[in-house]
C-alpha cells in the first residue's frame, strides 16, 4: 500500500518521469539524495573508446562495471564496432541470427551481459554506455540526453517509447536499450543508428533455423531508420560531440541544464585506449567474451525438432520427429519421436538414438550430420524440410 502512496508522490513531483521511477525504484534512495542536492558533488566524464573490436569494447565496459567507483563520478562511454551481431544475455544465438551468412561475411557473434534482444553493429552505429551506482540507474534520463542533443543540434524530433526505444516519426526505431544491474554498479547501454549498412543488418538478423523450442529471451523486430536519412547533416563525429556536451551540461540527477558553468566543473572528454596496461585484467575479460563457452555455452536450455521421413524395406515411409535436447550448448539427448497423430502400437514413443554426437557441441550443421548418421544405419533416408508447426518457436 505504501508503494502506491510513493508513486502518488512521484506523480505529483515529476509528472513527466513517473514511469522511470517505477523501473528504477528497486533499491533507490534518489529522493533523499535529491533533497540534499548531490548534483553539485557528482562530476561527469565522457570516455571515447579507441577500439573498434566488439570483444575489447564489451570487455572494457565490463571492466568499468566491475572495477570503477561511480559514487561521485558518472561516466558515459562511447564506442563503435566493426560489423558484428550482439545477442542479449539470455538469448539463443541459433534463433537470433543467420549463422551461415554471418560466418561467410566475417560478421562475428557475441553475447553481452545485459538483457534484451539482438542487434547488429557496424561503424555506422554509436554505442552509449551510461554508468552509475545501482541506485541512480535511470534509463529515461539517459535517453532524454540523447533526444535533447538531437533536437538542440539538428532539430530532430525523436521520442522515447514504452520499450525505451528512441523512435522517430512515431514508429522508426533509431536506438535500442538494454541494461545490467548489479551491486554496487549498474549500466544502461543503447545503440544509435547513424549510418549503418541496413542490408547487412537485415540479412544478418534473418532467422534460418527452424523448430527451436526454448524459453530464452526473444527479440522484438522493429522497423528502423538511420539518422542520416532523417537529417543528412548528422555525422558520427558531430553526434559524439553533441551528445557528449549535452551529457556534461546536464545536472547529474535531474534533467536540468547547467549550462557553461556546469560544463566547466566536469572532467570532460577523454579518449580511452583499452589495453591491459591501462586496465589490468582486461585481456582475461576479452578472451572470455571471445570464448565458445560464453557465446554459445551460456545459451538457455533448448530443444530442436526436425521432421524426417524414413522409408523402410517394405517400402513404407515412416515419419519421425528427430529431437535434440541441448544444455549449455552441448547435445545432451538425441531422440526420435513419433508425432502424436501418427503414433501407432508398432513404435515406441521415444527411441533413443545412440550416436557419438551426444555430448558434443551443437551447431547448425549437427542436425544434418545426425540425419546422415542415421541414414547410414538405416536403408535410405530422405530428409524433409517441413517442420511440425507444434514445434515452432515458443514466443513470449
Amino acid at each position, binding site marked *: 500500500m505504501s*508503494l502506491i502512496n510513493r508513486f502518488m508522490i512521484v506523480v505529483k513531483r515529476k509528472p513527466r518521469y513517473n514511469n522511470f521511477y517505477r523501473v528504477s*525504484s528497486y533499491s533507490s534512495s534518489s529522493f533523499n539524495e535529491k533533497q540534499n542536492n548531490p548534483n553539485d558533488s557528482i562530476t561527469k566524464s565522457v570516455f571515447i573508446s579507441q577500439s573498434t573490436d566488439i570483444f575489447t569494447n564489451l570487455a572494457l565496459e565490463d571492466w568499468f562495471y566491475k572495477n570503477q567507483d561511480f559514487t561521485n563520478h558518472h561516466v558515459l562511454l562511447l564506442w563503435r564496432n566493426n560489423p558484428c551481431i550482439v545477442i542479449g*544475455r539470455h538469448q539463443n544465438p541459433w534463433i537470433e541470427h543467420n549463422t551461415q551468412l554471418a560466418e561467410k561475411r566475417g560478421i562475428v557473434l557475441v553475447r553481452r551481459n*545485459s*538483457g534484451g534482444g539482438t542487434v547488429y553493429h557496424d561503424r555506422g552505429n554509436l554505442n552509449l554506455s551510461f554508468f552509475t551506482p545501482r541506485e541512480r540507474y535511470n534509463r529515461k534520463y539517459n535517453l532524454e540526453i540523447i533526444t535533447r542533443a538531437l533536437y538542440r543540434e539538428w532539430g530532430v524530433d525523436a521520442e522515447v517509447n514504452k520499450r525505451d526505444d528512441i523512435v522517430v516519426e512515431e514508429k522508426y526505431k533509431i536506438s535500442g536499450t*538494454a*541494461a545490467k544491474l*548489479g551491486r554496487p554498479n549498474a549500466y*544502461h547501454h543503447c545503440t544509435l543508428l547513424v549510418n549503418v549498412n541496413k542490408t547487412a543488418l537485415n540479412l544478418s538478423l534473418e532467422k534460418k533455423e527452424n523448430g527451436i523450442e526454448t*524459453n530464452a529471451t526473444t527479440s522484438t523486430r522493429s522497423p528502423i531508420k538511420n539518422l542520416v536519412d532523417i537529417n543528412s547533416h548528422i555525422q558520427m563525429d558531430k553526434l559524439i560531440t553533441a551528445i557528449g556536451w549535452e551529457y556534461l551540461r546536464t545536472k547529474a540527477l535531474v534533467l536540468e541544464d547547467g549550462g557553461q558553468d556546469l560544463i566547466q566543473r566536469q572532467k570532460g572528454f577523454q579518449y580511452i585506449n583499452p589495453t591491459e596496461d591501462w586496465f589490468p585484467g582486461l585481456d582475461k575479460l576479452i578472451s572470455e567474451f571471445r570464448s565458445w563457452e560464453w557465446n554459445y555455452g551460456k545459451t538457455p536450455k533448448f530443444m530442436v525438432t526436425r521432421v524426417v521421413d524414413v522409408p523402410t524395406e517394405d517400402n513404407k515411409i515412416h515419419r519421425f520427429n528427430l529431437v535434440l535436447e541441448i544444455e549449455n550448448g552441448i547435445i545432451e539427448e538425441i531422440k526420435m519421436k513419433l508425432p502424436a497423430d501418427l503414433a501407432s502400437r508398432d513404435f515406441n514413443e521415444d527411441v533413443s538414438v545412440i550416436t557419438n554426437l551426444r555430448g558434443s557441441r551443437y551447431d547448425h550443421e549437427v542436425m544434418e550430420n545426425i540425419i546422415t548418421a542415421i541414414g547410414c544405419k538405416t536403408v535410405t533416408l530422405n530428409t524433409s524440410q517441413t517442420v511440425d508447426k507444434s514445434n515452432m518457436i515458443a514466443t513470449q
Partner: protein
Amino acid sequence: MAKVIVQMTKYTARTFSRTSRECLFNFSAPKVSLHFSRSIANSRSLNAERFYTEKHEWITIEGNIGIIGISNYAQEALGDVVYAQLPDVGSEIEKEAECGALESVKAASELYSPVSGKVIEKNEEVEKIPSLINTSCYEKGWLFKVELNKFDELKGLMNEEAYNEFLKSDPA
C-alpha cells in the same frame, strides 16, 4: 501487500484454532479433522517466518535449509520477469555474491543470496514460467534452496515488521 498477507495469516490461524477447540468438544467426524490438518499444513507454510535483506531478498528457514526469493517490493520494481537464471544445484554460493540473474524489461538484474551455503534445489517451475515471480513471489515464485553453513549470517536480517518499517523509511 506484505502486511495484508500477514493479517490474512493471522486471521486464518485464529479461525483454525477455534475449529480445533470445537473438534475437541464435539469429537467431530473425520471429515472435519481432515480439513483441519490440511489447513494446518497450509497455514504453516504461510507462517514460516520470512527474513529480509535491505536489498529485498527474503529467506525462510526450516532446520538447516533456507528457501530464498525476492520480495513483493522487488518484483514490482523489476516489472515483468521474462527469464530466470538460477544457480545450479550442487553449487556453493557465498553471501551477497552474484549467483544468478533475473531479466525484465531488457535489464538483467544480478541475483544475490542472503546466506552462504550449498544449493540443494532450484525452482524449475520458475525457470519455465518466470512470471511466477511476479504473480506469487512468496509462494510459487521461490527461487532456490540452500543448505546453510553459517547461521550467524541470519543475524543481520530483518523480520517482516522491521522490513515493512525499512520500506517506509527508505523512500524510493
